[in-house]
């Protein structure tokens, strides 16, 4: 058992840090640091910079534009990017549909879509969930009917993150009625600029706008934009969802949230001393710091060793990771005190900058 980072890993971390400090635009980092959803222009600008360096999709196979990094290097990269307040690259192209296209797509699909996913020029959204279908994807209602060289698609998608600015949607639609519910579903690539697409924002609890309802009304999708075989969409979707299950347990997010909470608490005054020095607060922070360090080792363990029951271990990481992030954010709210009450719609508003 060896619990040290190797010299190579340490050098790698330094390289990433140096890159970020030279290349991450200050205004993008500032906006993202304030906890708002990054705007499209920030997502694209930052991905273009990463792409130039060849780092926009580290996890992809090298032949498609990946970096060939080890799992621990990818971990270090993600850690440093979030530590520097770089907004994470939109996952819909890079993590979700990209691997489906390079694994199951036609050569022309690869040529047409992969470069713009790599560069971030094209942003994607995911059309899986539908009203009433809950997490049960197989009960899908959207239909695609073959009409010459095209499919004509009709249906409704919901909880569609970033649909309001995405260029493309990958979606599941029923092309025939199979014996099992999972059969007869196809995986289509659909242009969001088609006039038959209507996006209705869903306002959420955070008073922000990230998710949408998408109405698909007689939208024509070329048969060239069918991925793989007609009726096999369910298996591609499963492949994609398996990729989505990463083991990072939000550890980088939590580390970042904790650092921010600490800054807030160091600045806030409580009975004449910094809140961070008040022992009740400090005790709570200590417990979270300890859990955070534990969580990081939980992730490293998943990356490195054969754990006895990987599925259970991954669930434990996910559950604990969620709970910890929530607890850190609760502590942040408590550190804000009365400043948690006002709602500031704009991240560049003067009042917001007071806390950072």
């Amino acid at each position, binding site marked *: 058992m060896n619990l040290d980072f190797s010299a190579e890993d340490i050098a790698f971390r330094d390289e990433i840090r140096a890159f970020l400090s030279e290349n991450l635009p200050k205004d993008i980092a500032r906006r993202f640091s304030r906890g708002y959803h990054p705007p499209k222009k920030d997502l694209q600008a930052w991905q273009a910079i990463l792409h130039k360096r060849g780092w926009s999709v580290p996890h992809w196979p090298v032949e498609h534009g990946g970096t060939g990094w080890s799992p621990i290097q990818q971990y270090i990269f993600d850690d440093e990017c979030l530590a520097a307040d770089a907004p994470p690259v939109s996952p819909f192209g890079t993590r979700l549909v990209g691997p489906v296209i390079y694994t199951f797509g036609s050569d022309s699909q690869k040529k047409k879509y992969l470069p713009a996913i790599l560069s971030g020029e094209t942003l994607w959204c995911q059309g899986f969930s539908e009203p009433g279908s809950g997490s049960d994807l197989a009960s899908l209602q959207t239909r695609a009917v073959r009409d010459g060289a095209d499919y004509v698609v009709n249906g409704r998608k919901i909880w569609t993150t970033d649909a309001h600015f995405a260029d493309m949607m990958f979606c599941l639609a029923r092309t025939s009625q199979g014996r099992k519910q999972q059969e007869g579903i196809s995986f289509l690539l659909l242009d969001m600029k088609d006039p038959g697409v209507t996006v209705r924002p869903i*306002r959420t609890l955070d008073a922000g706008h990230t998710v949408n309802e998408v109405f698909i009304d007689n939208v024509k999708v070329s048969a060239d934009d069918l991925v793989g075989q007609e009726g096999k969409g369910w298996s591609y979707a499963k492949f994609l969802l398996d990729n989505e299950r990463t083991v990072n347990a939000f550890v980088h997010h939590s580390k970042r949230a904790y650092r921010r909470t600490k800054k807030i608490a160091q600045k806030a*005054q*409580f009975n004449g001393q910094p809140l961070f020095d008040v022992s009740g607060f400090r005790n709570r922070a200590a417990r979270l710091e300890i859990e955070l360090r534990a969580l990081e080792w939980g992730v490293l363990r998943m990356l490195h060793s054969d754990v006895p029951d990987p599925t259970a271990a991954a669930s434990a990481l996910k559950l604990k990771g969620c709970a910890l992030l929530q607890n850190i954010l609760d502590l942040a*709210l*408590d550190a804000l005190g*009365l400043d*948690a*009450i*006002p*709602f500031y719609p704009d991240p560049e508003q003067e009042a917001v900058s007071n806390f950072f």
Partner: protein
Amino acid sequence: MDLHLNEEQKLLKESAARFLRDQYAFDRRKLLIADDAPSGVWSKLVDLGWLGAWLPEEAGGLGGSAVEFAILMEEAGRHLYVGPYLSASIASALLRNADSRGARERLAASAEGERHLTVAHLEPGSRGMMDSPTVRGIAVGSSYRLTGRKRLVYSGCFADETIVSAVTPDGPSFFAVPMGGTGVATRHYRTVDNDWVSDVEFDLAEAELLVGAPGYASALDDAIYVALLGVGAEAIGLCEAVLTQTKDYLADRKQFGRSLIEFQALQHRISDLFVETETLRWSLLDALSQSSSARTLRARSIFGLKIQAGSIATMVAGQCLHLHGGMGMTDEMPVSHYYRRARMIEAQFGNTDYFTAAYTTLMD
């Protein structure tokens, strides 16, 4: 000892519930909170006598007590009321034992709905109501001029006058300042739970002394009692309502062919939330029982209520949000509003950490 509501109290509760159910149903509320300032419903509440309901007759009220106030705030919580009622009541509490003519006049005018009052006490950097003000007041003839900054002035966009805490050479005192007057600059914004608040900057603003330094501490105590009793009672209504709605939601939703409410693990969670809500009601009784007690006794019980209200409401509404699944995250579901309000109850006037620290200074 008799813990039953008397006949008048029962009627008050029913009338408040009926009014809010009719005038403040969730769909109607959605439109009302989209406005730039609280409107219609407020003047009706004043007409219904909400402001005077808990004030003694000599203070222009109807002879009620803290119990009446708690009844109204509980119903407010149940229906997610946001608007001027709580801040105007805190203003009344500040003035009710003052002996100045200005205070007495305003108390009556407020209860009558002739003048809408609010309170400007918290400041940038404050962590709660017990923090000392830094706004300065200097005497100019028989009146005063105030200079400094206040924040979280509820309904500041709407009130006629605000009661301001400020320090004079004699010590901290409360003053009245007209909201639109010279030397009063405001910045209005909304809160996470859709209420209306303002930052107010005073620059030699003309002010009338209402409560001088000798009465300051006791007036502030009265205001704190009413503020915390208000959110405490509100939290009970909130918890009961969100829990009922969540049970209904789970009964409606099906998964794997069964209604969600049939899952044992969900039933257990609902039961736990019921128990917490009950606990909160017990703390309310405790706080009400100390409404006329000596300072330390009253403070302990009301801080206790605030601490319980903040943590229990956050927990209950948070769990209910979770039980709603993805739908709960949308603005169109009441649970998302209950959750935001619960979080604000936790933060308002000073959070759990703040009042726990205050409580520990009062332990035997």
